[in-house]
């Protein structure tokens, strides 16, 4: 069902809601398409006319700077018209339902929704309830999925380490609340990396996490051994008040990615972070800004990858 919803009758991408149910071929096609857009980003004239005349609505029910900006940039470079709607200051705060918001925007003849929402399944719901011609791109729903982030991470990894099948990837930190981690795990397993690991205390791991196809570590040193890619996740402050962790400092001591810890990974391992970074909480500044870090490259790749996804979904 997830699969059918995302693909049109020809098996082409219609909505991009989750990595779940998408084929390896499709993920590789996204990466290859992004490759060609990445080349354009280096040009003097960065615009292509692929989506001229199309209207894309950035529908953000949750705050975001990075994701929204890169989506906006991606849409602008594809020559689409972009409408940014910040729902915190808009109709739903006056009690309008999600469906009414969608219906109203549809009536304005838009072509695509890029949706971020605090509840899992919101993007699916919008895709199921939108007019036939509208494409929906999930820019993060609850704790479920953030598939464009996973694709830009995969893109960055492939740039640095092209032989994906040999890679050992570790994801460190708050897996429980992370839609990024869920999408990354699915993406990495779909393209067939050698091993995906999660490293976290039990309080920050969802039940039966191993069913996602990961090996589980509670010890950062052991988890990092022989790893090619180390991804740290943002730790939200509220985790400390809900009895999930005793303190930031204890978390940093056990799971913070410091130069000393990073030595346990492979010498040429890369360090990633979906942002925004809490320096000194999940990662040391010297690691975030160090030679192994590709964090800023992730951001620039975000534009190319989102251009690829927007154009593929619009063209189907």
């Amino acid at each position, binding site marked *: 069902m997830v699969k059918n919803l995302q693909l049109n009758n020809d098996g082409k991408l219609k909505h991009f809601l989750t990595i779940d149910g998408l084929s390896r071929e499709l993920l590789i096609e996204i990466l290859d398409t992004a490759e060609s857009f990445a080349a354009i980003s280096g040009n003097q004239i960065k615009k292509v006319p692929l989506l001229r005349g199309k209207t894309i609505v950035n529908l953000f029910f949750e705050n975001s700077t990075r994701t929204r900006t890169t989506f906006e940039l991606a849409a602008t470079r594809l020559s689409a018209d972009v409408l940014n709607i910040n729902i915190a200051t808009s109709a739903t705060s006056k009690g309008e*339902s999600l469906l009414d918001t969608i219906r109203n925007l549809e009536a304005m003849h838009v072509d695509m929704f890029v949706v971020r929402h605090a*509840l899992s*399944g*919101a993007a699916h*719901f919008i895709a199921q309830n939108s007019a036939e011609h509208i494409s929906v791109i999930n820019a993060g729903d*609850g*704790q479920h999925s953030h598939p464009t982030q996973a694709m830009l991470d995969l893109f960055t990894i492939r740039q640095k380490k092209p032989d994906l099948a040999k890679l050992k990837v570790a994801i460190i930190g708050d897996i429980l609340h992370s839609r990024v981690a869920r999408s990354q795990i699915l993406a990495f397993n779909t393209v067939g990396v050698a091993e995906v690991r999660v490293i976290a205390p039990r309080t920050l791991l*969802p*039940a039966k996490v191993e069913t996602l196809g990961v090996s589980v570590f509670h010890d950062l040193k052991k988890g990092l051994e022989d790893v090619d890619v180390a991804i740290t996740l943002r730790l939200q402050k509220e985790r400390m008040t809900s009895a999930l962790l005793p303190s930031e400092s204890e978390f940093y001591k056990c799971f913070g990615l410091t130069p000393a810890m990073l030595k346990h990974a492979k010498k040429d391992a890369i360090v990633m972070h979906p942002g925004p970074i809490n320096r000194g909480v999940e990662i040391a500044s010297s690691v975030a800004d160090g030679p192994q870090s590709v964090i800023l490259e992730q951001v620039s790749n975000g534009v190319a990858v989102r251009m690829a996804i927007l154009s593929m979904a619009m063209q189907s």
Partner: protein
Amino acid sequence: MNKIEINGGRIIDPANQIDRIDSVYIADHKIIALGAPPEGFVADLTIDADRQIVCPGFVDLSTRLREPGHSRKATFKSETIAAASAGITSMCLQPDTQPVIDSPAVAEFIRDNARKCGYRQIYPIAALTQQLDGQELSGMLTLKQAGCIAVSNANRPVTSLLVLRRAMEYAASHGLILMFRPQEYSLSKHGCAHEGAFATRFGLPGIPEAAETIALAQCLELAELTGCQIHFNQLSSRGSVIKIQQAKKYGLKVTADVAIHQLHLTEDDIEPFNSSYHVLPPFRTGLDREALRSALNYGVIDAICSDHQPHDIDAKLGAFPETEPGIASLETLLPLTLKLVKEGVLTISQAIAVLTCKPAKIIQQDKGTLSIGTHADICIFDPDANWEVNNQTWHSQGQNTPFWGHTFSGKVTHTLQSGRLIFKAE
């Protein structure tokens, strides 16, 4: 139309160990004979039940008609018709109406309105605490006198064990049974799916099995302390089954039911983000379902209820976690129970017992049998008739069922309540 004769059907009356093809004779609302007609009996109405099963009308331990307060979801009229069409002749109503059933006026209002719709056997469950707020005891004795058959806090928490203890002691003093859906709220709140592989994959806040078993264990301890008779509603997990089994062995006065959909669906069956699967307690694992099924077979679980919760369309439109939980399930009660027979979980006699005499015994009502002299509550159904769940066949105002569009075997043709024909299939 006082005298009714039902001919040629297979009579299954588990309470009296009857399973044979025979006739039933009804006069003055009561069953007066099985087999040969009493002398001088001339029927006003004869029902041909050839190739059909004739059994006691079903007794549903947990239903919501939604009125008063939520008529956008369902009404007395819509739901009593749905119940009659499903062969259900007695319904216990959960107290979470608006206003809640914490005063005799509300209980009487409900019974009166149902009666106006031609449906008489309504058993309100009184609120355990005023406003269901979990703080102060309701006027249980007055509510009992107004026809309430049990007390319950429905799905609302009683967070203080002291309040729960006192409520149990008070209920026990008046011979009232306490109905309890075990759920520890500090473990379950915000949850909308079983804490397991499905919730993890789809990023849904989970409800662990322990949220149910911990509350159940606490309640069992208090049952022993207070001597209160407890009936557990809508068990969903293997751990609960084990605890109930131990408690029964130990001699506690406890009984339990399971919602019909829990005996069929597991987390693996949920279509991702399809809100018609959003129900509490949530669908758990295959292991849990097997445990619930065998508990029913061995009598550890005493009854199947519908746990009918009709909703309006808007309640189910939204991102999965924000939709309202609950399934409209009066009309799938019989076909899904018959499916258990087909799948070898229960014999037909067991299946009818868990819908009739066993739930009736829990609420201490003289219902659910075809004994001579009892009120004629009778369901006649064709076990082999197929029907599809759709707009034409469905009566409840709530269409929130994961079985929409499914085809089932087992269709009610006639329902009699106290000797009055309240449903006849066209």
